[in-house]
């Protein structure tokens, strides 16, 4: 096994050398993106692509931009990434968690190419990881949800049971509970990130159960449509502002904005200052954007939400500040204690008060 890996690595390096890699001889910096979905999916991939295009606009002729969409996770991803590296890319962004192992494997064969993997945890000398603290936005949504509901029932369309989604549920619940002690969360898992039909069904089911605020960790606007049809239900934009549903039902949103990061990292490659880092940014750097709180929210509560946004951005408030107990009642954070990034990254439990079980 060891010998084999060594041989494979050697072959990859030799192959790269034979091809006259990397493309540092050229003036242009070649930037590659590997997407998991189509670039017009209206959600995750579309936002990475938009941000990438902003980066391209920023640099103009100094960069050559290549991308590949709808790359399946697994062996096809490994080939797509290798192909891009062989094609002379200087830096390659792989924008789905499932590209983690393929990215790390390819990176080992191309020590001179920089790799940036979104939402993963495996770093290497030429592999950086980056992700966004979406839970910061969830705290604001939770606060608004707790204020706006009259039935005290909040629906939550959850996607795939991974720490990020669970963090979101917990952050929203904690803050809804804070402003409304009678709050109750109803969670529906759809096990997909984007499926308009399922999302609409989930939204309708939640509304039928009496939820008058529906949060979503899925990418389509279908829940907003369902809420609009039902009337009197509030929703939040996800990944995009989804402003076409404002001021009702959409009352605010979490917006993915990767552009500043992409510009920063490509610049670092140009300057020769790129190094492997683990980035986890939130509202403060703009990676997580908070969409305009619409005017159907009473001014007093709107101000409250905006104050929280500003406090999080300034670093004076952490959404996971103790005392917080786990669902089973065991203590997690003591009074005034804030959660460590390690705890957050691997969070796989509900906080006290959330009902139901995490599917597994």
């Amino acid at each position, binding site marked *: 096994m060891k010998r084999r890996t060594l041989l494979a690595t050697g072959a990859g390096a030799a192959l790269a050398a034979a091809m006259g890699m990397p493309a540092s001889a050229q003036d242009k910096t070649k930037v590659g993106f590997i997407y998991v979905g189509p670039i017009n999916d209206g959600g995750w991939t579309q936002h990475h692509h938009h941000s990438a295009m902003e980066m391209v606009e920023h640099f103009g002729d100094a960069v050559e931009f290549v991308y*590949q*969409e709808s790359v399946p996770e*697994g062996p096809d991803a490994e080939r797509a990434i290798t192909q891009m590296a062989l*094609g002379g890319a200087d830096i390659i962004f792989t924008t789905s968690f499932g590209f983690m192992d393929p990215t790390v494997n390819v990176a080992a064969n191309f020590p001179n190419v920089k790799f940036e993997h979104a939402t993963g945890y495996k770093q290497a000398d030429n592999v950086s990881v980056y992700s966004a603290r979406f839970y910061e936005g969830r705290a604001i949504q939770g606060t608004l949800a707790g204020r706006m509901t009259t039935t005290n029932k909040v629906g939550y369309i959850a996607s795939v049971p991974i720490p990020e989604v669970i963090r979101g549920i917990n952050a929203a619940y904690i803050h809804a509970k804070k402003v409304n002690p009678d709050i109750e969360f109803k969670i529906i898992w759809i096990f997909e990130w984007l499926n308009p039909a399922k999302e609409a069904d989930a939204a309708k089911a939640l509304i039928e159960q009496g939820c008058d605020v529906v949060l979503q960790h899925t990418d389509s606007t279908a829940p907003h449509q369902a809420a609009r049809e039902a009337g009197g239900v509030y929703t939040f934009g996800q990944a995009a502002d989804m402003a076409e549903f404002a001021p009702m039902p959409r009352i605010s949103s979490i917006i993915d904005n990767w552009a500043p990061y992409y510009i920063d990292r490509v610049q670092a490659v140009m300057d020769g200052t790129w190094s492997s880092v683990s980035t986890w940014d939130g509202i403060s750097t703009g990676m997580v954007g908070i969409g305009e709180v619409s005017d159907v929210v009473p001014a007093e509560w709107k101000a409250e939400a905006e104050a929280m946004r500003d406090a999080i951005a300034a670093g004076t408030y952490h959404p996971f500040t103790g005392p917080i107990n786990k669902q089973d009642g065991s203590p997690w954070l003591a009074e005034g204690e804030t959660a460590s990034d390690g705890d957050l990254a691997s969070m796989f439990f509900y906080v006290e008060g959330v009902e139901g079980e995490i599917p597994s």
Partner: protein
Amino acid sequence: MLRLEKRPQPSRGWTYGAPVLAVFLTIVLGMGLFALLGKDPLVAIRTIFWDPIFGPFAHFYRPEIIKKAAPLVLIAVGLSFGFRAGIWNIGAEGQYIIGAICGAAVALAFYPMDARWLIFPLMIAAGVLGGFLWAMIPALLRVRFNTNEILVSLMLVYVADVLIKAFSIGVLRNPEGFGMPGSRNLRQYPSAANLDLIPNSGLHWGSLVALFAVIFAYILFTRHHFGFQVRLAGQSPRAARFAGINANRLVILCLGISGALAGVAGMFQVAGPSGQILGSFPSFYGFTAIIVAFLGRLHPVGILCAGLIMALTYIGGQAAEAQLNLPAAAILTFQGMLLFCLLAVDVLTNYRFRLGQGEAR
């Protein structure tokens, strides 16, 4: 006037000529498609069909083609038994998934024990058995209750799909994976890994087994009584009954063989190129293999060629997406045209064009 006339017998020449013409037609139509998308059609076709084999990066692409073709050939050879006998297993994808789950589960049960001589053969056995048993569901239901095996096997694909998603976040989840879905990577577990036997050759155990399956099927079809039974049942079910062929036994054998081969293909895939049990593991090999089986005329050697060509369109197609920024949908359309052309051209096997009016009836 041009009209179609049924041939007294299927044309032998067209039986083999049709796939070649279909590939050629697909290329011509594809060039039109790429031209409409504003790309140079010749460059696109060269990128898809020529560069992966003879281009500057061929040493990287060639093994990739073999690795992509291996599961397709393995599954398609299995399907060819049933398809020849008129037994339609449309659910090879499901058997492929279940084979992968079973194979991976065996490996993960032994983790981190160091005993390749024991674990790897057991994984193969589990893959075979998993696929076989999954195929036995439609087989037994058909034999016992005369259900339609097309529907049952197809529906079981969706069940298998849900199962692998559940396993990837449930019992097979990597305990050191920070709560993310997906099992441990079997490629990093030497006792279970199905890596290239010669580095960068694309020849892993799955590729070799696919070759064996081709040879074995060839011998079975040409030399063995079972092959004769399969052909007879397909061409003339009535004659087969008179010849004393047990139709139920044939259903079980044909579905069993295709299930077992699809299952072992899944196991080799999950232990090798894929590495992980993951919700995204299923990648339609089981469905693509149906195209491969027909493109190869249900003949083992034909299937081998068809599998390699199909793999080439995947590898080359993906390269074209990246290098020419073609939309992913264009490549899918291109591959779809291949089956479409084959079906269209196949008319020539059973019919011929005639000029003028037909005789009055």
